[in-house]
């Protein structure tokens, strides 16, 4: 991975285009990032991507921004983090600046509304695709603990609407407790 102008441009343009398509909440950027940095560019592996997302989720601030900072830092240090941050904040800055000027006509515009309604279906499909892939990996690992954490966390988030940061902290604490103390003796890893 040579760090030349082309590398930094790819980093910036990836962050910019991912942010421009993050419609419907910050988590949407995660599947898009995974597709770009894990599958397409192969700069980060699947496991690390999930680690980075977990950490971004536990820090304050928009998750899309935090995840971009972590990916940028992982790939090219502080300069990389700076580049991905700028790439991530520019699309909302440009789009909202434009829209706030023509807001009244935008709100009533049938074509704009139809476009967004249609794109939402695409967003849902992209998330479903990534969830299938990631949950398959966890189930295939045949690790009962991981599968249990996944199911419990899903119930906690969807049915009980427990704060995401709390779910992250509890599952991390459980992981630390289980893998470091309960499983210490016996087989390795």
């Amino acid at each position, binding site marked *: 991975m040579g760090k030349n102008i082309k590398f930094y441009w790819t980093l910036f343009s990836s962050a910019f285009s991912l942010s421009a398509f*993050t419609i419907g909440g910050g988590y949407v950027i995660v599947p898009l990032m995974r597709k770009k940095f894990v599958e397409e560019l192969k700069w980060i592996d699947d496991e690390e991507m999930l680690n980075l997302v977990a950490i971004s989720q536990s820090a304050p601030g928009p998750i899309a921004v935090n995840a971009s900072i972590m990916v940028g830092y992982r790939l090219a240090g502080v300069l990389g983090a700076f580049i991905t941050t700028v790439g991530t904040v520019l699309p909302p800055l440009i789009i909202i600046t434009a829209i706030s000027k023509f807001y009244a006509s935008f709100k009533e515009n049938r074509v704009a509304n139809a476009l967004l309604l249609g794109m939402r279906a695409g967003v849902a499909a992209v998330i479903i695709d990534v969830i299938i892939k990631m949950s398959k990996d966890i189930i295939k690992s045949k690790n009962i603990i991981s599968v249990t954490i996944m199911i419990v966390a899903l119930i906690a988030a969807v049915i009980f609407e427990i704060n995401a940061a709390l779910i992250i902290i509890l599952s991390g604490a459980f992981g630390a407790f289980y893998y470091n103390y309960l499983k210490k003796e016996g087989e390795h890893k």
Partner: protein
Amino acid sequence: MIYLDIFISFFQIGLFSIGGGYAALPLIENQVLEVHKWLTIEEFADLLTISQMTPGPIALNASTFVGTKVAGLSGAVIATIGCVTPSCIIVLILSYFYFKYKNLSSVQGILKGLRPAVVSLIASAGISVLMLTIFKTEVTSLANIKLSDINFISIIMVAISVFILRKYKINPIKVMVGTGIIGILTYGLF
């Protein structure tokens, strides 16, 4: 000084919105409506509508919207910088420690516990988007759904898109642009 006020307000919004998504909403409301009176209630409602329709985190959308209104383009830029500054500092510190210590077995244990939970959090975000997609009106409880509330065109689009994504591994942005165009053709013209 107005720029400093904007910076400090959005710095606080960035710093205290933990948990993502709509966690930032009450903070934005407090800063923008109560502390500073930069927006009216109607403008705040417009901001929410715009945020739902446009890309980007709501805190960043609010930064630009409020910044532009209070002090033009430079206001928007300063609000945005204020909003991401806490993230930059805190996440960089966390990144530093993560990459330094990620191979320690105790840290590995934590991460091994975290990963399945993150998959579920992404799934729960996916479920909310899916609900918004397949129902025409906002569904508050599953008990009173009518058949006419279900958006069949969207369900078909989602199903076909998932199939294409799984089978051909194409760029998801292309899929989103594609469903957007189909959206214009089906919802916009009739």
